[in-house]
């Protein structure tokens, strides 16, 4: 089975037999992969009808809900990992969601497009317009991404909320990693992947 590299990286971080919650689980690819390879159990949360049908077809437990409405249906510390891939930038209340992740899960895993990538900086800095890149392909007026951030922004938000970052890695739009990117993640990383927990 081929899997996007960011999902591959996440699955390497996850201990076998864990209970996981995937916020904005899409068509269930990651959860399905984790179930097959790591014998995880748990749920995906998703809002889109088509994705719900895809998850059910893939035998994934999926709950149709709006993440912005909170995770009140889940008790504290219900999961080993609460994950959110490529969704942070699309929620209305990222800080609230982050804290909910830390309430319901022992560890959190988040991936998001790095707005501090050099191409974004160049387009905004020199071009004077909102960046349109491979990881952020929509125009400012029709994007669902309303809370874009850089690596530094995210790390500041974590520190403000007493969240300790355990692991960070960056990949490019094709979810590959190379040396330059590892040396200059803020500038060259297109997608950021974090694992974190409460301090």
């Amino acid at each position, binding site marked *: 089975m081929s899997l996007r590299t960011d999902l591959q990286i996440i699955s390497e971080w996850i201990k076998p037999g864990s*209970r996981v919650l995937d916020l904005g689980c899409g068509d269930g690819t990651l959860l399905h992969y984790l179930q097959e390879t790591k014998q995880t*159990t748990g*749920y995906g949360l998703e809002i889109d*009808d088509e994705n*719900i*049908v895809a*998850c*059910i*077809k893939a*035998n*994934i*437990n*999926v*709950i*149709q*809900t709006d993440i912005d409405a909170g995770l009140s*249906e*889940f*008790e504290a510390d*219900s999961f080993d990992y609460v994950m959110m891939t490529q969704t942070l930038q699309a929620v209305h209340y990222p800080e609230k969601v982050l804290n909910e992740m830390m309430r319901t899960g022992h560890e959190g895993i988040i991936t998001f497009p790095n707005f501090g990538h050099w191409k974004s900086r160049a387009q905004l800095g020199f071009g004077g317009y909102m960046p349109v890149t491979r990881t952020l392909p929509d125009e400012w007026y029709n994007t669902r991404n309303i809370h874009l951030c850089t690596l530094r922004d995210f790390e500041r938000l974590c520190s403000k909320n007493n969240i300790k970052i355990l692991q960070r890695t960056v990949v490019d739009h094709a979810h590959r990693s190379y040396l330059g990117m590892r040396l200059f993640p803020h500038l060259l990383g297109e997608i950021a992947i974090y694992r974190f927990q409460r301090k």
Partner: protein
Amino acid sequence: MPDAIPADSVGLVTPQTMHFGEPLLLECGRTLKQYDLIYETYGELNASHGNAILICHALSSDHHAAGYHSMDDRKPGWWEACIGPGKPIDTDHFFVVCVNTIGGCQGSTGPNTLNPDTGIPYGPDFPVVTVKDWVNSQARFGSALGIEQWAAVIGGSLGGMQVLQWSIDYPEQLRHAVIIAAAPKLSAQNIAFNEVARQAITSDPDFHQGRFYDYDVVPKRGLMLARMLGHITYLSDDAMRRKFGRELREGKINYGFDVEFQVESYLRHQGESFIGKFDANTYLLMTKALDYFDPARDYNDDLSTALTHAKARFLVISFASDWRFSPGRSREIVKALLDCAHDVSYAAVESHEGHDAFLLPIPYYLDVFQAYMSDVKKEISP
């Protein structure tokens, strides 16, 4: 009447009756010494008996869930949208069983059947039956059919409540529980509507304290009012607006009290057509079963505790405009299942149709249902 039976229908079906001589102890403390259950089946039971699906029906429906009784039938069974070859409850793969509840009026032992002790209809002497009683009788019925474990138990509304009760009371005997447009117990508002319906029936002079059979009459006005009231709660405000608006039957106001608005005509038609089809005593019993339903009651009023030992996988579905059992009520069930870390999926279907939506062929609803049932199908051993 169908000119020809549609290819995706189970076609012509004939109800069967099973007699039970062994007494059934009811929750109210009384005992039914013997009873009959009327049921229909669609599809074939396979060699391992592992492909059986039990359908639980709602308040005013019955065992006739799909197909036609004769080519003269105006309409097919009540869940034709979901049961049939290639449909979510695929009769090419599943053996589907639907049984009329005890206390019903379509052939199972109920108020309108003869009490063997007296030789006259039970009428008001029929014991008050509960969802738990129904589930017990269905479990016994399943054993009689040779079914040790249902591949799935499925129901909407009051049917969904039976499914929930099944998952709690007989955890080993079902692999999947599909609960549609239901609630874990009625709200005060739900009970209030039921009480008005019961008052309409019992205050009808033709009700005769439930002994109307002896007088060869039917409490028509009461039954009709109960049904009209019910129908208001089955539809959403939006659905009524779309269906009828303020449309006038004769195109003008007549300044009188006859039927003028189309919605009045619709309600009266629904009420009148119910009179010949449904028994007033059964209506009282069914509404009571609804009011009393509260599986958490035996578990310190905690639904999560009630569901601790459930083993089934669950699919819960709600409909946006359903105000009888709103999506929030379904989520109470989901929450309890999440607390127990049980396998559950939940779909919130956008629909303008109100509570009745669960009977309608809404594309997303059918897609979710079909996807889930195809998983159920995959697990079946031949």
